């Protein structure tokens, strides 16, 4: 078990390095491929008014003339030891962990990310609880009453849920529940949990529901398919032959086995969400990682985009790692196999 954990941890670290190298290469090479030069990159940071000499100087000081691997090395070094950015007039210090420095807002990226993680985390956890409760129970009931009216209604509803994009359901939700009925908070009213838990929940209620709607639909279908399969297994017949109440047969034996593959998908989905629920945060103006990424992209703020991408990758890798470890707990055959 210990070697299994160590092996997985090691793989996760290696994976993160590969991802960082790939992401870095993309963000620093692609602009050059489409015609950007170190000078035009530097122009973006010092402004168009600067003289060519100044631009050249800044580009040199920021290391834009250096080969890609050197720039990458410097960036990685910054994560562990911090970095200094010489902007000519001032030298900006970016303390470790330095995930880049935005020359547009003149701020290090890391503190921004740290500020936004709680928002995205709140959104993701709340929605995940909702969609697991609804998705699993609807899916299970559907499977048990296969072909019934309830099953058909649930599956039609979930097809709609899967198909309707969040920017549609979110907008409709805002229009009806926030602006017409006034039951939920309007967009952009996020309050920190530590400030006021009730305001926090009030602001997030609609985003949770809208996000959970889409995932519940998907999870209901997954659970239904999984349950239909496991409820036909021999060990379910054995459980019945023991005289277990049908409820225990379904939950302890059926659902328990059906949950394993769902756990994998949940890990991926949850990890992805932590990297930024882009659409939901955008629709509801939640200041999370997703909105941060959208804003950074619109402003062409490459260091921010790179930082938030790394953050997202980090969450996905960590979520996968946790799923792998959980798998060993959930399925005893993994432990020795």
């Amino acid at each position, binding site marked *: 078990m210990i070697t299994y954990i160590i092996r997985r941890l090691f793989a996760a670290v290696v994976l993160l390095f590969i991802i960082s190298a790939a992401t870095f290469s993309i963000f620093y090479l692609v602009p050059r491929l489409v015609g950007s030069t170190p000078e035009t990159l530097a122009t973006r940071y010092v402004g168009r008014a600067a003289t060519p000499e100044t631009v050249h100087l800044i580009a040199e000081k920021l290391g834009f003339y250096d080969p890609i691997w050197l720039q990458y090395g410097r960036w990685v070094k910054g994560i562990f030891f911090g970095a200094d950015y010489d902007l000519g007039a001032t030298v900006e210090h970016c303390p470790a962990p330095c995930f880049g420095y935005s020359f547009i807002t003149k701020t290090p990226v890391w503190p921004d990310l740290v500020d936004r993680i709680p928002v995205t985390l709140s959104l993701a956890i709340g929605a995940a609880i909702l969609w697991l409760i609804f998705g699993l129970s609807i899916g299970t009931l559907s499977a048990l009453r296969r072909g019934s009216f309830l099953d058909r209604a649930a599956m039609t509803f979930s097809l709609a849920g899967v198909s309707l994009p969040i920017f549609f359901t979110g907008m409709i939700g805002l229009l009806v529940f926030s602006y017409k009925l006034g039951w939920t908070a309007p967009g952009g009213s996020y309050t920190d949990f530590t400030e006021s838990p009730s305001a926090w929940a009030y602001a997030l209620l609609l985003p949770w529901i809208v996000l959970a709607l889409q995932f519940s639909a998907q999870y209901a279908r997954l659970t239904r398919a999984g349950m239909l399969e496991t409820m036909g297994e021999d060990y379910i*017949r054995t*459980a019945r*032959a023991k*005289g277990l109440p049908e409820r225990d047969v379904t939950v302890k034996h059926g659902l328990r086995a059906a949950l394993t593959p769902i756990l994998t998908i949940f890990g991926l989905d949850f990890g992805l969400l932590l990297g930024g629920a882009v659409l939901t945060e955008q629709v509801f103006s939640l200041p999370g990682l997703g909105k941060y990424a959208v804003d950074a992209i619109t402003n062409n703020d490459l260091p921010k985009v790179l930082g938030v991408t790394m953050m997202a990758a980090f969450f996905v890798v960590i979520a996968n790692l946790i799923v792998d470890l959980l798998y060993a707990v959930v399925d005893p055959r993994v432990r020795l196999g």
Partner: protein
Amino acid sequence: MPDGQAFLEVKDLKIHFPTDDGLVRSADGLSFKLERGRTLGIVGESGSGKSVTSLGIMGIYNKRNSQISGEIWLDGDEIVSAGQETVRKLRGNKLAMIFQDPLSAMHPYYTVGHQIIEAYQVHHNVSKKVARKHAIDMLGRVGIPQPDRRVDDYPHQFSGGMRQRAMIAMALVNDPQLLIADEPTTALDVTVQAQIMDLMHDLQAEFNSALIVITHDLGVVAELADDVLVMYGGKCIEYGSASTIFERPEHPYTWGLLGSMPRMDRPTQDRLVPIPGSPPSLINLPQGCAFSPRCAYEPQTGGLGTTVPPELVRAGGSNHLVRCHLPTEERQRIWAEEVKPKLEAQ
């Protein structure tokens, strides 16, 4: 027991499944009796309705997609008309079942001990500790070495034979009075098969339970059964004591089964003789006798075989029933003069 009723009495049991293609008659009017301490072997090919019958007796069927009728009396209580909750409380308690493939029949995510403890605790209001002690005791009784350690192993950590032993322990943990074993040895290799059969025989004697062994393996029947019921197309086509069925069988299908059975007690053996054709679909049974398309003696029925379904009637011996149009003397003659010598010559 009221009015001389047997411990287990099945009367005209029908289990039908309506499907889009038609009505599947998996069990179609089965009747038999079984006393405690006795063993009934139910024999038949795949798809003859053996397993459905056993699940029907256990009360494991989905009321939404099956129709069940008839009577099953267990120790004076009727099960078919009883409520689901009543039958559930009997299940695993008074009547228990052993399944064919112990690897797929045990839950892969729970330890063997957990699964036995669970079976015990459903029917006994005891602490986990007490149930665990009972489970360990039971594992020891079915011959699992170091039961106090193996109790925490998962099914995949057991060998095939050990798993079947654990399965038996799970079925016997509540001292059932009726035990149904559905192909208990099919998934096991030959030496283990013999061990498991010995074990079941010993345990049956110890618990004085009634045992139903469902199998397509006549060897298992010869080993364990007191009485034999031969099933074909959802119906009983021959019933009698084991010695009758093996020594004076009267149904051509039973002759075929015997002819297709490997005999280790015979010195010379050329080839096994298969029964021609394949088992009938339970939806469209052949007109008349279900076995007629595969029966070599069908021409001797004078056309009855393909037109009129035969009744289950008394055969030559006492307590011997057969469902065949051939006259009794004719059947006895064919067996004695044609079939038996051939089988012995094999």
